[in-house]
């Protein structure tokens, strides 16, 4: 089985998927990422899928579970570079990727992670409690209305 390499990139982990994903490769990536997040203390995970030609329900669900898993381990996930045809297909398939933050490309993905890291810094400074609603991390640092 091929494994997808995970690279350290500043405060984040970078995963670039360049192979046709088998189900067990996907499951291995999920486990490897969890271990690497804990071992490295990374605050973000950036997954580049610009070379991925199809995302079916299994692979899509993997993105959602990686995002949920990272959040529990105190890291944010951004999936970057989804091809337009893949996006159209995903929506028609019925997969909305709830809870997965996406970016058009790696640059924008990295910008999102940096912005979140800055907010995280603010949050730590003020010792503010997280909102508790894991589904809306973007508003986590905002006051509860």
């Amino acid at each position, binding site marked *: 089985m091929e494994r997808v390499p995970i690279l350290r990139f500043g405060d984040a982990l970078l995963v670039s998927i360049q192979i046709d994903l*088998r*189900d067990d490769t996907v499951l291995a990536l999920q486990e490897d990422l969890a271990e690497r997040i804990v071992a490295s203390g990374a605050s973000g995970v950036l997954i580049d899928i610009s070379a991925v030609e199809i995302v079916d329900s299994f692979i899509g669900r993997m993105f959602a579970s990686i995002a949920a898993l990272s959040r529990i381990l105190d890291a944010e996930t951004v999936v970057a570079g989804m091809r337009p045809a893949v996006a159209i297909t995903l929506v028609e*398939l*019925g997969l909305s990727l709830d809870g997965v933050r996406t970016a058009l490309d790696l640059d924008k993905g990295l910008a999102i992670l940096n912005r979140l890291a800055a907010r995280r810094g603010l949050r730590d400074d003020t010792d503010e409690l997280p909102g508790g609603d894991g589904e809306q991390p973007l508003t986590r640092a905002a006051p509860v209305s």
Partner: protein
Amino acid sequence: MTGVESVETMPVRTGDDVVRVRQLVRTRAKAVRLSLVDQTKLVTAASELARNIVTYGGAGTVRVETITKGGRHAVRATFSDTGPGIPDVELALTDGWTSGTGLGLGLSGARRLVDEFDIDTEVGKGTTVTVVKWTR
């Protein structure tokens, strides 16, 4: 008149086979000049249906063929297994219904991604799903 050509059959038993099915269907979809979006939809549907064979049917085959009718071309893919069959097809085609650990989008999602969808199943005998995607 419908012309059928370039029939190809391959066994499906493992995750590697699922990847090979995607590649075979992609090659055929390109050959008949399906648009990129339609190629992606067909390959995604094929991926779901091939995985169903591995997950539920245990083992089976996929037959991929190119068909021509009235100047239009299509790829037809037939997924057959000799697994347990589906007791309630209507239920199995409902979004979110799953007998396993998946999302329940496999069958219903695959149906939405293709132009023609046909399912033939018998409990204890197996399941055959046929999908067709036409050029526009």
